[in-house]
């Protein structure tokens, strides 16, 4: 029997990691991630988790340790937040370019300056183009289940995977969570098979300098150039769309919990007004939808679980009847708009769906987003849309703009 415990998001993540049995863990503390590194240290010191824990002196080194440990053939884990993730930036690219199935939790936090320890998603969203899969969680149950899925996904497509969840809102909030059984997780997650070993028995120089063209090896075989390797990473991101869906289906079969794979939907059956977002703000939006449906408004939520790969086809299908789309997001692409809005608009381009996409920036630096504020924002949007106003306006929710 699996056990139900009342735990924080960080404890859910740490328990999931323990169930996945990584061989090497390296992390540097940063609020609100810190508890994961503390719990994993304890699990390693008490023997619950049989792994090497490298207590590094920085986030840059944390990810560097994992890159090299993964290249030797170990399953690995780290966690970070905010400026810690940004300090890893160079190594995020290196990990993806090395095609290493590293799994990391990003406990989402605002980025300095000025300092904020509180939640938004500017940290992970600003790392969009580093070549990592990014999955966003709604609640603590989804955190534990997504970490387990992340290893399965990453090790199938050899792309590092970031499990993102909102700092404090989830990381420090206790919820009942069903802990999967260790034997079942073992059954779901086969042992890690590295694509390339760093091994004296088979010496090779890994990640040397490439010239712009393809070159022959000593046997006269023409080998990939830099651009071919980049193409293959992108090709495997395309494959990962199916893999994420497939892994979700298999997980549902085994554990009985379904997260929808790339996206999830709430009350969309007859909806023509759609709210979308990632993480806890999208979950909050389901409460707003409940309230508005009582007034007869045909509204639903499409939650985006996978930001990379971005599920274009899935969204086109989900929004096929959309009259209005409202995006709530906890990040801003300065000089343009909320990054998620841009992505949604780009996905719909040429699809025949010409619903206006309303862009809301909300909850930056931990500013609370209450259900009633989402309801008011949705109402306001509907009124403006009725008057024909809409297309390229960004609204800062609950922000003094005097």
């Amino acid at each position: 029997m699996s056990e139900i415990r009342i735990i924080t998001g960080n404890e859910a993540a740490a328990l999931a990691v323990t169930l996945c049995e990584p061989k090497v863990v390296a992390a540097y503390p940063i609020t609100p991630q810190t508890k994961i590194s503390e719990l994993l240290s304890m699990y390693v010191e008490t023997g619950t988790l049989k792994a090497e824990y490298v207590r590094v002196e920085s986030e840059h080194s944390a990810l560097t340790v994992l890159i090299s440990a993964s290249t030797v053939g170990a399953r690995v884990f780290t966690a970070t937040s905010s400026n810690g993730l940004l300090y890893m930036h160079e190594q995020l690219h290196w990990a993806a370019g090395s095609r290493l199935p590293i799994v990391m939790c990003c406990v989402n936090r605002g980025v300095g300056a000025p300092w904020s320890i509180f939640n938004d998603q500017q940290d992970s969203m600003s790392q969009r183009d580093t070549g990592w899969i990014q999955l966003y969680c709604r609640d603590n149950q989804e955190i534990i289940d997504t970490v387990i899925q992340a290893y399965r996904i990453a090790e199938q497509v050899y792309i590092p995977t970031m499990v993102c969840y909102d700092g404090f809102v989830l990381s420090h909030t206790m919820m009942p969570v069903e802990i999967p059984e260790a034997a079942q997780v073992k059954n779901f997650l086969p042992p890690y098979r590295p694509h390339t070993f760093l091994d004296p028995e088979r010496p090779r120089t890994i990640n040397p300098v490439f010239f712009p063209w393809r070159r022959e090896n000593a046997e006269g075989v023409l080998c990939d150039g830099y651009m071919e390797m980049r193409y293959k990473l992108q090709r495997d991101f395309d494959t990962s769309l199916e893999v994420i869906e497939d892994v979700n289906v298999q997980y549902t079969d085994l554990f009985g919990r379904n997260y929808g794979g790339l996206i999830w939907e709430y009350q969309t059956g007859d909806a023509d007004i759609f709210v979308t977002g990632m993480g806890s703000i999208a979950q909050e939006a389901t409460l707003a939808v409940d309230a508005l449906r009582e007034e007869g408004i045909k509204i639903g939520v499409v939650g985006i679980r996978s930001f990379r790969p971005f599920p274009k086809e899935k969204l086109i299908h989900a929004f096929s009847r959309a009259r209005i789309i409202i995006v709530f997001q906890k990040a801003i692409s300065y000089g343009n708009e909320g990054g998620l809005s841009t992505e949604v608009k780009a996905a719909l381009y040429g699809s025949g769906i010409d619903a206006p996409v309303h862009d809301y920036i909300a909850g930056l630096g931990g500013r609370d987003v209450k259900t009633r504020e989402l309801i008011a924002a949705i109402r306001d949007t509907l009124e403006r849309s009725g008057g024909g106003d809409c297309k390229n306006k960004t609204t800062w929710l609950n922000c003094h703009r005097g």
Partner: protein
Amino acid sequence: MHENLFKINEKEYILPGSRACQGCGLSIAYRYILKALRENTIVAIPPSCLCVLHGLYPNTSVTVPALNITFAGNAASASGIVAALTALNRPDITVLALSGDGGTYDIGIQSLSGAAERNTDFIFACYDNEAYMNTGTQRSGATPMGAVTTTTPVLTKKDHKKDFIRIMEAHNIPYIATVSPAYPIDLYEKFVKAKRIKGTRYIQIDTPCPPGWGYPAKDTVKIGKLAVETGIFPLLEIEDGKLRLTGRSNTLSVKGKRMPIIHYVERQMRFRKMSIEQLNQLQSWVDKRWNDFTNRADN
């Protein structure tokens, strides 16, 4: 011929066709390092001349496994290799992180300090060619006073070289040594010894560089010997806090016939703009350091 030459492992681990420059001090050092450490070795490499020496994908002239990593992280990379080898129960492999002076003194110091503080079980060797040579001779924390580099092109470097031996000593690691490719037997023996020691071992390699230092490629060994003869680069090892001068440096400390630094300086174009004051300051810096080492030496 020195009798110890016959003890050196005959096997070559670097095949003909490396991409290093003619007369490269690193090539000589690396050849003897790998002879000493042998095949059961993994090398961690940051962007540097070593990365160039290893060649362009898909070919390499080096027959031990090697992993390239970004500039700041070589010691962390080695930590990751060591952690995974431990976790996967393969403890018999020697892990060598080999960085240039930039990857050691400057951008690499944080991860090296962290790895040394954790007493990570690896050898960190710094091939010190005293400037950022791979990018074309820019000033580093290891550049000596008075040297012209492409970022100190007119006024020369104003500051003395960072004393990295003392920095590593402050980490209380079990083994520290200095070596020179001009004295390959001394180099070989120190790497053989380091291989047998557990914990963090730091070895600094004086690495003459013909294009960067401005001397004919045939003179690499000669310049390396002058560095030792003048005492600007003493050959030593420090085990459990005890310092011992080795080889030629030990002889010099006993017989006291150290050459003035001018003999070393005048053969290198990088010192062409050095003033008399700078020369005197460099001589004082060398003398003080030499006296510190010889006073401490426990031979």
